[in-house]
């Protein structure tokens, strides 16, 4: 499983593992449902173990972000690698999330 979700004070913690390429992102579409259901809370996404992200992976993160905008929660992204951060910079996604 590419996404592990655990409870964290005030919300949920999602840990991303490995490569979120197009194939993995399609499989992960179901896995993000608990995050969407809790989009009124703080959702922390830990990218320390995320090696790679494609545009379909970014789409998943945007879906979560937009759901929090509707329901009043927020998304915090932490521990991005330099490579993943570059993708966030190029696409402007760096401005859409709280980055730590």
């Amino acid at each position: 499983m590419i996404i592990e979700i655990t409870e964290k004070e005030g919300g949920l913690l999602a840990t991303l593992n490995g490569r979120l390429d197009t194939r993995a992102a399609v499989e992960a579409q179901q896995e993000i449902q608990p995050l969407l259901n809790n989009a009124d809370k703080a959702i922390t996404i830990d990218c320390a173990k995320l090696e790679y992200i494609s545009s379909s992976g970014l789409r998943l993160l945007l879906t979560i972000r937009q759901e929090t905008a509707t329901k009043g929660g927020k998304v915090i992204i932490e521990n991005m690698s330099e490579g993943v951060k570059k993708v966030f910079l190029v696409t402007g996604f760096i401005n859409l999330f709280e980055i730590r």
Partner: protein
Amino acid sequence: MVRHKLILPNDIATIPQLKDFVDTVTKEAGMEEMETMTLNLAIEEAVVNVMNYAYPKDTKGTVDIETTLDDGCITFVISDSGMAFDPTAKEDPDTTLKAEERPIGGLGIFLVKQLTDAVGYERRNDKNILTVKKKIH
């Protein structure tokens, strides 16, 4: 000049094969890790675009990926026999929009353009031919 070729079906389940292929090429070119990662992303986006849109839904087709390594530059030629479509003609997304306003799609080809040095399209012999060039630093 070193050449490689990979032919994939229009099935995104084969994307890991594409990664292995690109890794082989970047290793030969002596590319560093970050460049390899961003080039992998650009090529994946270009190929996925073909897999998802070139052929009518539920129709089997293929995408050819040929690379040449020459003169400090890697060239990828990605071709298919699907419907005529020039991805380079697509308008770039507005990356300054707020989260609520950002459309869910439209980033793939933008990433190809942003992460490589040149992208060109031509329609020849009933094929879509996308050429992507990346300089080796």
